């Protein structure tokens, strides 16, 4: 599945360097939205064709909700810690500059 990553990186590079200013790639949304919809439709087809997944959809939903809530909580806690550290560093550098770069 390395090609997942490679294709994405090639897209980034082409977009950044504008190697291919083709009419097709001028409006990526025209490619992104229909292909997303198509691939999700294919995913739905696979789900609908497998009764085992359909029967466990509520369980998967509950697991999904649990994963979402814990991921959000984890990111909130980590971001708060990072924010406090950044603030502390910023206020320390302000007080340093007020002291002419000399420590208190």
């Amino acid at each position: 599945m390395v090609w997942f990553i490679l294709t994405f990186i090639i897209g980034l590079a082409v977009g950044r360097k504008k190697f291919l200013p083709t009419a097709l790639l001028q409006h990526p949304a025209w490619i992104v939205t229909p292909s997303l919809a198509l691939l999700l439709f294919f995913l739905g087809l696979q789900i609908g064709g497998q009764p085992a997944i359909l029967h466990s959809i509520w369980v998967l939903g509950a697991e999904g909700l649990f994963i979402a809530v814990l991921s959000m909580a984890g990111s909130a806690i980590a971001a708060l810690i990072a924010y406090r550290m950044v603030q502390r560093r910023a206020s320390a550098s302000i007080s340093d500059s007020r002291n002419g770069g000399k420590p208190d």
Partner: protein
Amino acid sequence: MTWLVLASVPLGILAGWLSHGTLHIKAVIENIVFALLLLAIGYSLGQDETLWPRIKSEGLRMMAIPAAILVGTLAGGLVAALVLQIGTRLVLATSAGMGWYSLAAILLNQAAGAKAGTLGFLANVFRELLTLVAVPWIAKYANGTLTVAIGGATTMDTALPVISKHVPPNTTVLAFVSGVLLSLLVPVLIPLLLGT
């Protein structure tokens, strides 16, 4: 357009259910569409001329928050994996979707099958919906940075209008930059975490 994307899954489920699983799409077609999608997503992020100078101008200070969001999301995913016992790699990859439900579902489906794709879709739809509901409340009663944290990759697009309505402009810029950086990581992180 969001509704078209969201409705695709139930429509597909209905078609699959009505056809009793006899309707199959050849893997090669699926792979071609998928490659085109990844190429177009990469291209759209790469061609945005305002994006890279913005990221550069915000500097390392702005990088600390998305980095923390990434670490926190994966830590939350790890705890969820320990509780649920349904496979650490799968749960970590699901949480690494960062709320980008469409791409996460497709990546998980391609790499680990339809059940993983369903879990990825549901978990990340829930993250996006919970973000949209929680942002006004969090912005009012807690730190604005938390609105950026809970949104993950969605703060670049769907959640951005809601966030910008409730937080100061500098936090809105942080939300956008953080959403972009996390969005860039999703297509790389999910396959890496699945180890496929």
